[in-house]
């Protein structure tokens, strides 16, 4: 019965063929634990995204109301304190897992050509995550957030000549203010997740095309030209 429904759906949607290949022909000799770090990092990303979507229903990115709305989430919104905690912790977990994943890829030499573009895409996910951590840190708009962002953005001011303009661009003014909060919130919830979605799409697309290194004995492991097996 379930198969009947799935097949009806698949005849129209046609997801089985391309992804079926991915799921079944993607044949690691053994899927050892280090090979899971990538998928685990993706899980952590999904957890941040889901909890972030929930928090956005209650958080107000305004200098006058931000801290109050965080207190509201922590005290009055049902399970709000937990969702906020998971959101915050998932970022740390994500950074650890991306690092572990990068080490696994590095050690199995899968960062080298023909997979260099995918390593680069992966390193972008790390940079975007760090930028999300930085912009997210300001959002509670409390003493720590305010001064950490003041120090963090002032670092751009050390650049010769362009420094002053850079700091002003980051802050949306001379000092960290409500305008900074507005643009950091926009970056944290819209611009950076959008970039992340693009990069992750490219990342998975290339894995699908090129296969896992060492996954297929007679496959793409050492193929000079690139997208061997699939």
């Amino acid at each position, binding site marked *: 019965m379930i198969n009947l429904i799935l097949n009806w759906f698949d005849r129209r949607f046609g997801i089985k063929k391309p992804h079926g290949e991915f799921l079944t022909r993607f044949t690691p000799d053994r899927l050892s634990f280090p090979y899971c770090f990538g998928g685990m990092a993706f899980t952590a990303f999904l957890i941040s995204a889901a909890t972030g979507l929930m928090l956005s229903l209650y958080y107000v990115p305004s200098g006058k109301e931000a*801290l109050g709305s965080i207190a509201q989430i922590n005290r009055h919104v049902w399970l709000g304190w937990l969702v906020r905690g998971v959101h915050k912790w998932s970022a740390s977990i994500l950074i650890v897992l991306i690092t572990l994943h990068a080490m696994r890829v590095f050690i199995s030499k899968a960062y080298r050509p023909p997979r260099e573009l995918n390593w680069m895409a992966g390193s*972008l996910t790390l940079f975007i995550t*760090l930028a999300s951590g930085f912009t997210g840190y300001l959002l509670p708009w409390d003493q720590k957030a305010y*001064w950490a962002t003041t120090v963090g953005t002032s670092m751009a001011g050390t650049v010769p000549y362009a420094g002053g303009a850079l700091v002003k661009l980051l802050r949306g003014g001379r000092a960290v203010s409500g305008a900074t909060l507005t643009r950091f919130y926009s970056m944290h919830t819209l611009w950076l997740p959008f970039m992340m979605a693009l990069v992750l799409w490219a990342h998975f697309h290339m894995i699908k095309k090129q296969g896992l290194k060492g996954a297929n004995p007679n496959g793409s492991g050492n193929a000079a030209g690139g997208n061997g097996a699939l």
Partner: protein
Amino acid sequence: MAKKRSLYPDNMDKVFMAGFIVFEAALAAALLYPPAIGQKIDFVAQYQPRPEWYFLWIYRLLRYFPGGLAVIGAVVIPAGFGLLIFFMPYIGRGGNGHVKASVIGAGILATVIALTLVAVFTV
């Protein structure tokens, strides 16, 4: 070589297990260490906050480059590490490229970890 196994269905249990571990870890951390509500901003009194743990190494690094050299700790080294990581495939190309890349990669990792630890264990 071992016999071929496919991701689905042979390894599906591992996939779900891995995802589950991540979710449980986030949940456990959130339950054990829920983030507090911070204090109101004091816009006047300068206050030196510590950043999140993943930026601690830069925070520590800044101390080694006072005054006019600050740009080195604030921008040059962090951006340089980023660029080295991004272009790692080109360092690792060719005969003994992987050795070169390994040295550089391990160097970056060791520097970041060492600075983080120093920052954690000093005030």
